[in-house]
């Protein structure tokens, strides 16, 4: 009996890895190849650079979102954090002069950036405390905090962008570097480094193990001595921090802190995580899938532009992607009886 039970486990995890691992990667490659062939504009270095930049910002947000969703939660405040952190950093850099483009007695970015990042982590931790210690629904808490942050960004920026001039650090952070003759945006490199760190954290550290344990069975984790509240709070803090980092990147690239900087990033990040194979119910998934999801979304986004899809219709595409992603999630978990694809084969246990 034992051997056969394992065989089920193997065949299941094999089927799952085909659907959730290799599958999306192959789709991604196919998409990129199709765009490459069909659109000369897509092949231009500028276009690739732009996709890389966009992928970097979404990637940072989605990395934090991956942690949160792995615990079975969700963070809807991330796009507001992108805007908020950008506005805060821009104000710190540009001083009190919000209407002009001059730096008037502001802080250097090496002061402004850490402050904005710390605020991001702190507010994220606040989300975590509300979700854990006060047992509030993460969906509503982060939706509320999203409004607070967006509103704050709007008020602080008086409704328009706060323009800055990049100093050396910000210039470096948002610049590009030649790797083997190819000019690669530094934000993308930073994002990839963050992904490697996330991967190590998830796979090699106690914190990572606890993240999966909480998503798999929070009660069992707590009764095994895992400080579930502390860990979850830290995870929301990470999400806030990474969203703030994305906010800095976006602000630096646009040379403007504005409340629109993070628009659409929440839904896109959730979509990227889910497309990447992380279950919305938590406990299953990983960081590399999310990265694939991020690039997929960016390719669809870019593809629509090069296919002359009207830019006003972008929202439709984003909405469709998130709905599709969640559909993929439910199909993948075999939650639709008539669409099980015979992958799970049912539960043989008694």
């Amino acid at each position, binding site marked *: *009996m*034992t*051997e*056969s*039970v*394992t*065989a*089920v*486990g*193997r*065949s*299941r995890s094999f089927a799952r890895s085909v659907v959730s691992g290799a599958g999306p990667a192959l789709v991604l490659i196919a998409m990129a190849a199709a765009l490459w062939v069909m659109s000369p504009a897509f092949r231009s270095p500028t276009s690739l650079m732009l996709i890389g930049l966009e992928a970097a910002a979404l990637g940072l947000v989605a990395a934090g979102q991956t942690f949160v969703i792995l615990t079975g939660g969700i963070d809807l405040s991330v796009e507001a954090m992108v805007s908020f952190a950008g506005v805060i950093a821009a104000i710190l850099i540009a001083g009190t002069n919000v209407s002009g483009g001059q730096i008037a007695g502001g802080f250097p970015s090496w002061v402004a950036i850490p402050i904005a990042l710390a605020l991001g982590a702190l507010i994220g931790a606040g989300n975590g405390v509300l979700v854990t210690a006060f047992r509030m629904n993460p969906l509503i808490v982060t939706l509320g905090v999203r409004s607070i942050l967006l509103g704050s960004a709007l008020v602080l920026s008086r409704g328009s962008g706060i323009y800055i001039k990049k100093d050396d650090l910000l210039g470096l952070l948002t610049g590009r570097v030649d790797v083997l003759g190819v000019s690669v945006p530094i934000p993308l490199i930073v994002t990839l480094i963050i992904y490697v760190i996330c991967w190590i954290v998830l796979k*090699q*550290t*106690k*914190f*990572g*193990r*606890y993240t*999966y*344990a909480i*998503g*798999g*069975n929070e*009660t*069992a*984790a*707590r*009764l*095994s*001595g*895992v*400080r579930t509240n502390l860990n979850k709070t830290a995870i929301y803090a990470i999400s806030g921090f990474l969203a703030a980092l994305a906010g800095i990147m976006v602000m630096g690239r646009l040379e403007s802190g504005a409340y629109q900087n993070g628009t659409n990033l929440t839904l896109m990040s959730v979509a990227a995580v889910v497309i990447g194979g992380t279950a919305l119910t938590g*406990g*299953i998934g990983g960081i590399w899938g999310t990265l694939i999801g991020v690039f997929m979304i960016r390719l669809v986004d870019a593809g629509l532009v090069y296919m002359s899809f009207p830019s006003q219709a972008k929202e439709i595409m984003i909405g469709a992607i998130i709905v599709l992603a969640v559909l993929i999630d439910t199909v993948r978990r075999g939650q639709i*009886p008539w669409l099980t694809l015979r992958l799970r*084969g*049912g*539960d*043989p*246990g*008694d």
Partner: protein
Amino acid sequence: MLATVPAGVGSTATATGPILEMRSIDKRFPGVHALVGVSMDVLPGEVHALVGENGAGKSTLMKILAGVYAPDGGEIIYKGQPYTPRTPGAARDAGIVTIYQELNLVPELSVAENMYLGMELERGPFLDWQTMRRRARELLSTRLHLDVDPRTPVGRLGVGQQQMVEVAKALLHEADIIIMDEPTASLSLREIADLFTIVRELRGHGVSTIFISHHLDETFELSDRTTVLRDGQLVSTTPTADLTTASLIQLMVGRDLAEHDPKKPAEIGQEVLRVEGLTRHGVFEDVSFTARAGEVVGLAGLVGAGRTEVVRAIFGADPIDAGRVYIQGEEVSIKNPRGAIDHGIALLTEDRKSQGLVLLFDVRENITLAILDKLTGSQFTDRSREREIAAGFIDRLAIKAANQEQPAMNLSGGTQQKVVLSKWLAAEARVIIFDEPTRGIDVGAKAEIYEIMNELVAQGDTIIMVSSELPEILAMSDRVLVMQGGRIRGELSRAEATQERIMHLATASNGRPDEADLTEVPADD
């Protein structure tokens, strides 16, 4: 729309042959041949017990009958016609209703609303609540002897009464065959007695019951015939009267399980745990007891007596309003499970799947979950040490897993319990609290769990065992504490403890034994 309350004898009462025949049913899951040509028939108005160890294929067979799975081979003849239900709804409409262990009721809805859920009566465009309530009340009182207001939210009823509502729902669907999967698992003795009365009366009305239970005594008490499955194959279908406990166990496990006293008394040493005046208002009051090294302290009582709540509080899983806990004579303050674990206390919860294990984790990850912090000083995990530790426990407790990477969800109940136990032994717990240690665990694995408990006390550990199974309490405990209404009502030594004495204390009201209650408790031996 099924509008009438089924009254009296079912439509098949005249038939003398079986109402249901399952012929050579085959079912494969990836890698598992779950059912191998299993045949079984059900006569009108019989109680048919289906027994077998975990993984024998009972649930799979019943899920085929209930329309959850489609068989890969074989045929089912029901009322003389081929029967191929595509969905659970189709099976129910055909008159085959399953009552699962986890009841399918909406707690917030009323009794009548639950009974008529999905088959509401209408008058014009509106719901006809008056008729639905009246018929629900009639059905409950005449057929199920349950006198509840049909407007009561189901969540306010006890588990036993909720189960009656499920039965009522089945009758409303004019069920000819009711499948009960472990119906007694969370019932008190009295509720079990009530349920059995109802099942016998259904039999009189021509309704057949297929009854799955791990409690062999229930099989003997209730069933007319017994079908035994083992490893997905039919072993036998026999009139229950021709069986004995020993012969039935032998059929189930395929070997003789020596019937002997599972307890090996250990040398009882110093006091290890002392609890004084533990109170959570409205749940348990003034609970005091001690437990010594090498001792098994049994915590007996009916469901709802507060036993689980007390041990959870000792473990720091729930807060207390008052009381003190001493370990090795020193007062300790335990605010959360982490604190309890640091003081060497472990809790094996009654529900392993929802509270004890991370089902998505593999065997190794579950075993090391509580000790990751101790394994390394750094933030990183140490996989090679984890593997070593897991291998040690897989060997020591004879955990039946193909390898350490097998997900916990694919393990049998007994093996899962061993994995949870390994987690606590790895954490070097010296006071081990078992809450319903063998619930849902088959006969063979039960004996193994008892043997492990013997080994633990032999090496000087302390065991506190909450159990609703009196034979288990009597067999394993050195001392029995009986709880009722949130208080400890009495303490019995191993020599003093008998089923009668325990039930006497467990059914006492306000501390005074109630003779009327006692007489209705079925002797379950």
